[in-house]
């Protein structure tokens, strides 16, 4: 089977030479083959074997051990990657169709090729333990996703966003490389295997932070998130779905992999991860609320969900440090399940946003409205996605959040002072995230799909083709499966967690967790049946009544129109007022009339700031530009000056050597 993988890699280059109309199917075939192979590996490693699956691809090349090493954690991530990548590619079939008229064949070749390689690099990233090979795959992942993001590169802002993304990803890669090099010191192994040896003898905190900076940049923890809300809206929607659904999870994978080898400093590392995650979670969703670009809103929500995953990991680490195995297991399990959950509902939401964009040519929610009538299936999918992302029962998001909550509440009774405060702070954070997400998605769904159209953009909107809806419905099935038959998923996940993080001996308490999960599922079923029942009774009753339709009640005002509706900005207004110290929303208004003799149209503007972007990217950039402008005085353009500079340099070097300074 390993030969199949190699052949697949070789065959991928033929995408460029396949006839135009066959390219998609050829790529799909390759993708499916690899998905099949890697799913078998994943299933073997999770369900059948106690020891990891080891596969040699290239034997003894340059003395490097370039072999795949699939343990339960890798297996889990493989499944997540496989499902979302496949769904994304199915969705792409019709999504890319309008571009076929305006784009060259080559750009499609590059796109499909990059998509396949993004997929391949992701599955290899989670399977490779060896340092150099890992870094190479990490790099291929960054490059291929960059190529995917700049699909519409003729738009200059998209190109700029792409370059920004590429630079940031390389900064992240450098951190990972440095961390691997530091860890190499004792064992002379470059890769994850060296970590156990290094961590057992040195302080863990500094190296972990370097790893966290590297992997966190990929994952999008605040303040390392600035690429994320730019790159996701710029990319085509199926790419955003894969990037947000699974690619940023590679960062989480890295952090989990490193966490599994930690030996000391666990408490401080846990606090570090937890606080960064809490900030990411709360601020991510706060910034999401103020967005009115649908895809940007979803991108900020990715930051929020990475925060939730991080909270799980954080309390997992803290739990281990305090010998609270249950807290640890539930934290990690919640995080891992949320990785799966987020990959599902986030890709679903991005598909829906993509369908809206496809159909209306805009993703600005202020211009949308009333789409539920024109695109009922997309609207339904978006609604279910919103409910899941808010963590509402009976959908999947609730299960993972519940695991984290229940770990924290259960541990609350038997802990010391600090732990109590940490746990209550996390609980409060998680609650706030939940509430804010609800605020955000009632807005996103309500403004986009409900009410009346806010502009003419929705006039021509119609439901997207079935091919674009199929991935959504398949994801919805899995979402409902996790929400209503959770034990199928929580069982293996508990197993993965106990094995990966060496936590065992708690079989009894797992029964408790399983029991609770079953009861949640039962309540979920009761809920669905009751809703159906009440709705059925209502239908029967309404049949006996006279039902009339009329305009919306305008409180006596009869000339209401769609401009009187609440918009995205006005819905978020009371929140932005409350959160002004953090969000720094600025408003400006030019009233009718003003200083002119005749009244002109009034203008209202509000602008949101991402303060982290301002402080980490914008202000330093301005500073550097200012400094560079001053230094530019030297750039006179006269050749004699340049010769002088060279002479001064040689003189300086000479003097320094003479005094033995260098």
């Amino acid at each position, binding site marked *: 089977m390993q030969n199949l993988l190699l052949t697949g890699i070789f065959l991928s280059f033929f995408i460029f030479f396949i006839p135009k109309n066959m390219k998609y199917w050829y790529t799909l075939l390759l993708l499916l083959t690899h998905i099949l192979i890697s799913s078998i590996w994943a299933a073997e490693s999770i369900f059948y074997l106690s020891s990891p699956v080891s596969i040699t691809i290239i034997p003894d090349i340059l003395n490097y051990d370039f072999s795949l090493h699939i343990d339960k954690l890798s297996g889990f991530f493989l499944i997540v990657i496989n499902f979302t990548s496949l769904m994304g590619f199915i969705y792409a079939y019709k999504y890319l169709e309008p571009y076929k008229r305006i784009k060259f064949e080559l750009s499609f070749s590059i796109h499909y090729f990059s998509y396949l390689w993004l997929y391949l690099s992701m599955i290899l990233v989670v399977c490779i333990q060896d340092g150099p090979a890992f870094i190479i795959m990490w790099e291929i992942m960054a490059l291929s996703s960059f190529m995917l993001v700049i699909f519409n590169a003729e738009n200059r802002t998209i190109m700029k966003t792409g370059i920004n993304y590429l630079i940031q990803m390389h900064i992240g890669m450098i951190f990972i490389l440095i961390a691997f090099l530091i860890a190499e010191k004792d064992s002379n192994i470059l890769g994850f295997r060296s970590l156990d040896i290094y961590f057992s003898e040195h302080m863990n905190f500094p190296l972990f932070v370097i790893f966290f900076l590297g992997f966190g940049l990929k994952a999008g923890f605040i303040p390392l998130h600035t690429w994320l809300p730019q790159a996701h809206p710029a990319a085509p929607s199926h790419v955003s779905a894969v990037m947000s659904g699974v690619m940023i999870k590679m960062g989480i994978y890295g952090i989990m992999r490193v966490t599994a080898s930690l030996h000391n400093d666990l408490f401080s590392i846990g606090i570090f991860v937890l606080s960064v995650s809490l900030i990411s979670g709360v601020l991510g969703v706060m910034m999401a609320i103020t967005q009115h670009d649908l895809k940007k809103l979803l991108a900020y929500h990715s930051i929020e969900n990475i925060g939730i995953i991080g909270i799980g990991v954080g309390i997992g680490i803290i739990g281990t440090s305090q010998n609270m195995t249950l807290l640890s297991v539930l934290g990690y399990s919640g995080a891992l399940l949320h990785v799966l959950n987020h990959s599902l509902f986030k890709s679903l939401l991005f598909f829906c946003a993509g369908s809206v964009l496809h159909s209306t040519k805009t993703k600005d929610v202020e211009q949308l409205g009333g789409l539920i009538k024109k695109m009922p299936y997309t609207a339904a999918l978006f609604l279910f996605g919103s409910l899941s992302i808010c963590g509402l029962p009976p959908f999947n998001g609730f299960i993972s959040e519940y695991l984290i909550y229940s770990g924290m509440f259960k541990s*609350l*009774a*038997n802990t010391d002072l600090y732990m109590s405060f940490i746990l209550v702070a996390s609980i409060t954070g998680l609650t*706030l995230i939940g509430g804010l997400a609800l605020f955000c998605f009632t807005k996103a769904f309500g403004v986009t799909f*409900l*009410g009346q159209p806010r502009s003419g953009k929705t006039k021509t909107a119609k439901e997207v083709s079935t091919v674009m809806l199929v991935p959504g419905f398949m994801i919805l099935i899995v979402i409902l499966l996790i929400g209503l038959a959770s034990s199928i998923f929580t069982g293996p996940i508990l197993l993965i967690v106990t094995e990966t993080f060496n936590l065992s001996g708690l079989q009894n308490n797992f029964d408790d967790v399983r029991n609770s999960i079953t009861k949640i599922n039962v309540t979920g079923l009761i*809920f669905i049946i009751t809703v159906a029942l009440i709705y059925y009774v209502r239908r029967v009753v309404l049949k006996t009544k006279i039902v009339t339709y009329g305009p919306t009640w305008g409180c006596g005002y009869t000339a209401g129109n769609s401009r009187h509706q609440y918009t995205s900005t006005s819905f978020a207004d009371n929140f932005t007022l409350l959160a002004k110290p953090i969000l720094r929303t600025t408003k400006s208004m030019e009233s009718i009339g003003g200083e002119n003799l005749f009244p002109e149209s009034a203008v209202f503007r509000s602008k949101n700031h991402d303060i982290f972007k301002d402080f980490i990217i914008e202000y330093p950039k301005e500073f550097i530009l200012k400094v560079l402008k001053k230094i530019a005085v030297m750039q006179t353009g006269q050749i004699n000056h340049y010769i002088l500079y060279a002479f001064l340099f040689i003189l300086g070097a000479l003097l320094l050597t003479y005094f033995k300074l260098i």
Partner: protein
Amino acid sequence: MTGLLLIILSSVFFPGIILRIKSIASGRKGPGIMQPVKDIIVLFRKNNVFSDTSSLIFQIAPAVGLTAVLCSSLLIPFADKPALINFDSDFVYFSYILALGKFFMIIAALDTGSGFEGMGANREALFSMITEPAFFILLGTFSMLTGYTSFSDIFTQFYMSDSDFVMIFSLIGVYILIQIAMIENSRFPVDDPKTHLELTMIHEVMILDNSGFDKALIHITTYLKFAVYGSLIYNISVPAGWNIYLQLLLFAVVQALFASTVGILESFRARNRMRKNPDFILTLTAISIVAFVVVIIIRGKMI
């Protein structure tokens, strides 16, 4: 099972008691105690008017809202009898399932495309969002105090822990739960169900377009929600081990007292300015944090 039946039974009388108290306080003769129930029966018989703008969301939301409250009431125990469904951290489920109901009511309001209803929707979303931390910290405090994490266990164990201090927590709990119930049901001082100006409404303005059957469902939802919170208040104010007949009597008394409190508050207190509401709600979180710190102190963690 008893818990569920009692909640449904008390929700029948709850709004009537509020109404009676308000009539008496304002010196009117007022309607009878069963008037709200009669109103609901009338609503069930009425014809329906729907807005052209609205969609299926608007039609299904009242059913979802009602089911959410019914599901939440499955988790509430009565006396020492555990609830129909009880599991670890079930109050997380309680809070989230209520949030699901709210989600649907909010999007149903946006579904009508009315500016007024959008206004109510965003207020409801904001206020329910900032109420949640108070509830979670309070329940966290209780589970720390008792060592258990489900409603049924917490309330059974509540009076068995340090008996000197438990009254304090009972009082704090009652206070916070009353306030949360008032906010969740859009009553004083955050909202006023009897206001006549749409601009100052929260809940009422969200349901401007509902009529007939749907409106009846929404009213039932509100009454049930009151009874659910009343039941929670009962559970933390009366020890679970007492005689069952006494418990039944006390349950009626506590629910009646809660209803009267609502009535009296609404008769004698002015409502907050809309801008003041977030401050008011966040104060509850502050109080629950104080309760939390007190538990830490009495459990001897802080020395």
